[in-house]
């Protein structure tokens, strides 16, 4: 394979099969829905990259290459506000998940353009740093791995609350070297106080320029769960059918048993790390979208024409949207002072936080 950083051998991976025996096939409508969202996510990322290159944004980072995992994750999430629904502690490659939840891609363009209308941060944060309280999407923040330290908190609330809401946390492979990943395993697996958490690592075998090999003594990152009695699984995250089934299986376990599950998904990093590393399409990485599209065409669930139309439609829509967004107002200098302190508490949804004012 070729990547931006030549001469770096990549780890050879053998991906485990999803172990739930019966590989029941997914409904065609679901497959097409996943394909649609994956394409939409890809087009969105490509639009964001283009905007950045054209000077309509300062920095790009995102998830092209993770759609085959991130889209099913979003589809399977129980969306809503408060501990009865799922909490999402996402990292910065989660556009597919957000679109699957129903996010308007134009909002992502707004964040790229740093407009005042950016609903995720009001022009304060980088692209792909989502925040949607009404869907329990906790603010994505740049520091690697801190989400793994915070996630046990929402899961603690859910353990107490009961029901089927779970906490989902995602992050990259390199970041698991931070102590916060261990914190997450430890806090989720305390005997008698296990937490309903789906702990996810999307392993693209790189941290910026640093290959997986040479940094890890673990054969699989997922193996780290074993000492804690945490169920684990490593899957091919470039196959949306595998992903869907594996996520579903893991979620079913977590929702029901109220115990943690550690899921490692092998994924690609199709445009490199970020705009800082050029953000060009990397030949030789598995492209889950292409592979899936080919598969659907081979299975006659999709035609090449229909697929191209879809691509063209989203491309056109987002190009138009990016032009509109260009005219939206930037925040004013004095907006820096907005929202330093909250005037009243809004977290927890209608059911939570009754005692406090």
């Amino acid at each position, binding site marked *: 394979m070729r990547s931006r950083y030549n001469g770096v051998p990549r780890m050879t991976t053998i991906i485990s099969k999803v172990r739930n025996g019966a590989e029941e096939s997914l409904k065609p409508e679901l497959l097409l829905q996943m394909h649609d969202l994956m394409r939409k996510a890809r087009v969105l990322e490509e639009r964001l990259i283009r905007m950045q290159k054209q000077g309509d944004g300062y920095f790009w980072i995102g998830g092209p290459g993770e759609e085959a995992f991130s889209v099913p994750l979003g589809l399977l999430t129980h969306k809503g506000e408060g*501990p009865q629904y799922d909490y999402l502690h996402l990292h910065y490659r989660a556009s597919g998940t957000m679109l699957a939840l129903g996010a308007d891609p134009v909002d992502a363009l707004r964040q790229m353009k740093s407009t005042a209308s950016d609903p995720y941060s009001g022009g304060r944060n980088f692209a792909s740093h989502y925040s949607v309280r009404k869907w329990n999407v906790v603010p994505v923040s740049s520091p690697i791995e801190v989400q793994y330290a915070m996630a046990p908190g929402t899961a603690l609330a859910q353990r*107490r609350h009961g029901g089927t809401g779970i906490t989902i946390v995602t992050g990259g492979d390199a970041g698991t070297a931070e102590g916060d990943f261990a914190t997450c395993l430890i806090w989720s697996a305390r005997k008698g106080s296990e937490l309903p958490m789906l702990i996810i690592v999307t392993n693209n075998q790189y941290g910026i320029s640093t290959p997986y090999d040479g940094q890890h003594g673990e054969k699989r990152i997922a193996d780290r769960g074993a000492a804690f009695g945490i169920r684990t699984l490593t899957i091919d995250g470039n196959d949306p059918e595998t992903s869907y089934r594996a996520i579903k299986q893991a979620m079913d376990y977590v929702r029901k048993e109220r115990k943690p599950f550690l899921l490692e998904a092998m994924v690609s990093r199709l445009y490199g790390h970020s705009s800082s590393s050029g953000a060009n399409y990397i030949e030789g990485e598995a492209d889950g979208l292409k592979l899936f599209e080919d598969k659907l065409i081979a299975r006659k669930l999709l035609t090449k024409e229909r697929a191209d139309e879809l691509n063209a439609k989203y491309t056109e829509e987002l190009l138009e949207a990016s032009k509109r967004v260009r005219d939206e107002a930037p925040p004013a200098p004095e907006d820096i002072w907005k929202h330093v302190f909250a005037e009243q508490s809004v977290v927890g949804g209608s059911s939570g936080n009754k005692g406090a004012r």
Partner: protein
Amino acid sequence: MTTMVQAIRMALHVGEERHGVTDIFGEDVGAPLGGVFTQTQGLRTAWNSPLDERGIVGAAIGLALAGSRPVAEIQFCDYAFNTIDLLKLAGAMHWSSNGDWNCPMVVMTPVGAGIHGSIYHSHSFDAQATRLAGWKIVMPSNPRDAYGLLLSAIIDPNPVLFMAPKALLRQKANNDSEEVPGVPSDERELSKMIDAPLGDRTKWKPRWPDTPDLLIPIGKARMDRAGNDVTVVTYGRHVHVCRKAAEELATEGIDVELIDMRSLHPYDWDAISSSIKKTHRVVFVNEDTDITNFGEHLLRRTIDELFYELHAPPKVLAGKHLPGVGLADNLEKGSVPQLDDITNAIRTSARHEP
């Protein structure tokens, strides 16, 4: 008279019962110990966390985001220096999401020297705390304030850091103005009600006195002593040292006005500036190390806004810029402001001829 740990315990109890506190947690916070200073004994929602300060702060953030009301403890502030990124994140949650989320959590932690705690039980956290934008920061100097500030911290929709001066934790209220309202007047009676017995505690249950919702506003200082000659601005355990200094100086005819800040952020600039406008002299006292010290901020603001009001150079008294406070008595005394240092500084200010 009530001690500060008892006051904290009662505030947490009221927090649990009437203000939605769901989790009081940290290292050794739950049964059987109830906190290394007994500050969390007998509380319904108290539990022992893993020995992991990053996990503690992280979990508090998550609990807050999920609509719970956590009060997390860092056993000593000396062990919070690996969590500053997480504290910053909590403070940024509302702002960085442009008002979408808020993060109503309380972190409490004992601070400061004065108990021969050696290098790692003597740190101050004042400078660090005041640099945490998005946080409110309080530090009581007596049991009543501890009670009222902690309750205000609990109901606040923002992250609040409650720093307890560890040298005052076991001290009793000096008088009624420092007493928690509603407690039995006999302190042995109170102790029987809410202090866990030695030995087997498995069957012990506290009986809580009926204490009211005393909410001491965050951001308001307390005038500890009115005076006309020199303003002294401090907080925490140095309120008591400065009060002593004021009493000594009164015999020399120097009339000190003593302000107990109570809140380090937001802080009560009105109280400070009107006092300085009256006395024209000011000494800021704290025990944190003295390069890039919070008192230096207050002094800078004094210069910015009150330069021509001053009849003497404003002064900061702080701890020495050292890696820590040494254990030997001489070392501790040499490291943090002592009564004499304070008396001298005030005297110098009072006698200074403009």
